[in-house]
C-alpha cells in the first residue's frame, strides 16, 4: 500500500500490521493529548504541583530527555568535527533521537508554563542573567540545528529524493553539515550546561547550589559532560530496542563498540568529576551554610542514601567500568546492562537535581515536601515516549536511516521491492 515510499532494498512489515501498531501507540498519544488540553484549558491546577514543588515531574522529564538526547550532539560532534567516520552508521539515528528528545522538551516546556500565550516573553524580554533564558535560547536554536541535520535524511526518502531540488538540497546540506554540527555542539554545550546551571545557581537551595567558574556553577559542566557521556548510551539503547522490535541488525558491532567505548570513557571521567564534586560539596559547601550531609538524605525512604549510591556507584561507576573494559563492552548482555544502567543513572541525576532540591527543607523549621504527580502529569510525560515511538517507526519505515541495514541483513541477495 505504501511500498513506493519504503526505501529501496529493504523489507518492512505489512502496512496493516504497521498501522495497527501505530494505532496502539496513537491511543497513548491521544491520552496524553487529552491531558494536554485539560492543562491548557483548566490550568496547572490539573497537576499535583504546588508552591513547594514548582518544578516537578515535567521539569525532570525535560532535563532527562535533553540529557539522553545529548547523544545527538555528541555523536555529531565526533562525526563531523573529529571526523570519527565510523559513526556515520549511527549518526542518522542519533539525530532522529535528538529531534524526538528536543521537540519533546520544547513541548513539555510549553505545557509547563502557567501562561503559554506569553511564553515568547522568555525570548523577547530575556533576562540574560537567568540560566533559564540561556536554556530557552540554546534549546530552541539547537532544536533548529537538529532539524537541519535531520532534513537531509528526510529528503533521502525514495519519493522526495526524486525531486531534483530536494536531492541537491540533501546533498548540499551534507556538504556543510560540519558547520551546522559545530554550531550545534556550541549551542548544546551551553544549553546542557545551563540546565545544570538552573539548579546550581540557586544559592538559596543548598542541596543544589554549587560554586563554579565565572558565572557557571560546577553543575553546568557536569551536566554537559554527563549528557555527552550518557547520551550515546541512550542512542545505543534505542538502537538495541529498534533492532529487537524489527528483528534486524541495523548497526554493525564495530560501530556499536566504538560508541560504547567512547561513552564508557566519558562516563568514567564524568563520574570521577561527579564524585569529586559531591565530596567537595558535602565537606565544604554544605557545612558552610550550616547543614550536614545527612540533612539531605536521611529523613525519608524516598530520598535516602540509596539514591546517591544508585546514581553514582550503581548507575555511574558500574556502567563506566563495564564499557571501558573491552571484554565486558563486547559482551552484548553486559553492554546492554551497562547502557541501561547509564540511562537510569543520568535520569536519576536529573531527578535528584530537580525534585530532591525541592523536597529538602531549607529553613530549620520547614519540613520535607514529597509529591506524587497527577495522572495528567503522567500522561503528558508518557506522551513524548509514545510520540517518539511513532516518530522512530515512521522514520524507520520510510527513510534510509541505517546505512548498514542492507549489508547486515540482505547480504548478496537480489533487491526485492516492498510487498
Amino acid at each position, binding site marked *: 500500500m505504501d511500498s513506493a515510499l519504503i526505501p529501496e532494498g529493504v523489507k518492512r512489515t505489512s502496512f496493516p500490521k504497521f498501522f495497527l501498531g501505530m494505532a496502539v501507540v496513537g491511543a497513548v498519544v491521544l491520552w496524553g493529548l487529552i491531558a494536554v488540553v485539560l492543562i491548557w484549558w483548566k490550568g496547572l491546577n490539573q497537576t499535583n504541583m504546588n*508552591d513547594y514543588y*514548582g518544578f516537578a515531574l515535567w521539569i525532570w522529564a525535560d532535563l532527562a530527555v535533553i540529557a539522553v538526547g545529548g547523544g545527538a550532539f555528541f555523536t555529531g560532534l565526533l562525526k563531523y568535527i573529529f571526523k570519527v567516520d565510523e559513526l556515520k552508521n549511527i549518526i542518522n539515528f542519533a539525530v532522529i533521537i535528538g529531534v524526538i528528545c528536543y521537540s519533546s522538551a520544547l513541548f513539555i516546556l510549553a505545557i509547563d508554563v502557567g501562561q503559554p500565550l506569553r511564553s515568547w516573553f*522568555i525570548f523577547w524580554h530575556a*533576562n540574560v542573567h537567568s540560566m533559564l533564558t540561556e536554556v530557552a535560547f540554546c534549546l530552541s536554536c539547537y532544536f533548529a540545528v537538529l532539524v537541519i541535520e535531520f532534513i537531509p535524511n528526510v529528503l533521502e526518502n525514495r519519493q522526495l529524493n526524486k525531486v531534483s531540488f530536494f536531492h541537491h538540497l540533501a546533498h548540499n546540506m551534507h556538504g556543510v553539515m560540519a558547520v551546522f554540527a559545530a554550531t550545534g555542539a556550541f549551542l548544546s554545550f551551553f544549553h546542557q550546561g545551563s540546565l545544570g546551571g538552573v539548579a546550581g545557581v540557586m544559592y538559596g537551595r543548598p542541596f543544589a547550589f554549587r560554586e563554579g567558574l565565572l558565572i557557571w556553577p560546577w553543575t553546568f559542566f557536569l551536566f554537559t559532560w554527563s549528557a555527552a557521556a550518557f547520551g550515546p548510551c541512550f542512542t545505543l539503547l534505542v538502537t538495541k530496542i529498534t533492532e529487537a522490535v524489527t528483528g534486524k541488525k541495523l548497526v554493525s558491532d564495530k560501530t556499536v563498540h566504538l560508541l560504547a567505548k567512547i561513552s564508557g570513557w566519558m562516563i568514567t571521567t564524568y563520574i570521577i568529576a561527579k564524585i569529586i564534586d559531591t565530596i567537595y560539596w558535602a565537606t565544604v559547601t554544605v557545612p558552610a551554610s550550616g547543614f550536614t550531609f545527612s540533612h539531605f538524605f536521611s529523613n525519608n525512604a524516598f530520598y535516602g542514601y540509596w539514591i546517591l549510591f544508585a546514581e553514582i556507584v550503581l548507575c555511574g561507576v558500574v556502567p563506566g567500568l563495564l564499557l571501558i573494559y573491552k571484554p565486558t563492552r563486547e559482551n552484548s548482555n553486559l553492554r546492554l546492562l551497562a547502557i541501561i544502567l547509564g540511562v537510569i543513572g543520568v535520569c536519576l541525576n536529573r531527578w535528584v537535581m530537580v525534585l530532591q532540591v525541592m523536597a529538602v527543607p531549607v*529553613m530549620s523549621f520547614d519540613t520535607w515536601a514529597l509529591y506524587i504527580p497527577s495522572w495528567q502529569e503522567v500522561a503528558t510525560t508518557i506522551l513524548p515516549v509514545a510520540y517518539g515511538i511513532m516518530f522512530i517507526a515512521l522514520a524507520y519505515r520510510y527513510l534510509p536511516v541505517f546505512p548498514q541495514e542492507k549489508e547486515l541483513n540482505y547480504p548478496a541477495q537480489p533487491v526485492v521491492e516492498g510487498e
Partner: protein
Amino acid sequence: MKQENKKEHKFGMVIDLDKCTGCGSCMVSCMAENNVPFKEDESNKKDSITWMRVYKLTNGKDFPETEVVYMPRPCQHCSGKGGHGHSPCVSVCPATATDYGKDTGIVSQIYTRCFGCRYCMGACPYHARYFNWWDPKWPEGMENYLSPNVSPRMRGVVEKCSFCYHRYQLAREKAYLEEREEIEEMEYQTACTTACPAGAIVFGDLNNPEHEVTKIVKPDDHPDPRNPDVVGKSRNPKVFRLLERLGTNTKVYYLSEREWVRKAGDNYTEGEWETIKNHHGKTQISHG
C-alpha cells in the same frame, strides 16, 4: 552622584517574635489590602496564597517543657550576596518579571510579565512566592471590594509580598503634591505593620538612622568577616535573620529574647551555634 545615593532607601522590617501572638491579623490585612484571592479549600498550605504567612515553631522539647513561637514571614526582600540586588529569585527570572529596586530595596513582581515558569519559587528558600494555580474567583458581588491600587492576578503567574509598594506610591504622590522631597516614616507603612494589634512589626527605611527599624536593627553595612557575602548583619544581639548564612541578605529581621528562637532562624552544624551565637555585626561604622 552622592546626591543620588542619599536618596536610596532600603525598606526593611523587624518583627518582635516575643510580641507576636500568632493572631493572623497581618495575614488577613495583607490579603485584604492586596486583593489576594481565596478558594474553597485552603487547608493545603502548599498551594494557598498568603503573602504573609505565620509559621509556628516549637522548641522540640517534650511536655511540659514545650515552647511555641509564631513567626510571620513576608517576602524577605533579599538584597542578595553582598547586597548588590541579586536576590535568589530576581537573578533567575528568565523574563525579567521581577527586579530589585535599587531605590527602595524592594523586590518587585510583575504579574503581566510573568509567564509562570516558577523558577523563582524554586530559588526562594523562604517559600515566599506563590503561584496562581487557579483562576481567582470571588463570590458574586465580592469583587466589589477589590482595591484598584493592586492589580488582581490571573492564573498561571507568580505573586508575592510587595511591601505594599502601592502605599509607598500613594505616599509619594502626596509628597509630590506638597512639593516635599521625602516622605515621613509613618507615611509609608505596610498593611501588616499597621494591622498588627500587638505592635510586633516595625517597618521603615534601614538607610535612615532616624527610623525605628534602624534603631532596633542597627545594621552593619560591612561584610561579615566570617562570610563576605553577608552584609547588613544586625549589631543587636537579639536580632537575627532567616538563613542569614546563605548570603541572601534579607531585609526582614526578627527579634527575640529566646535563644532557641534565634537559633531556629538558621542552620548550624553541631556545636556551631555556641561559637556563632554571640557574633553580631561588630564592625565599626566608618565615617567617610
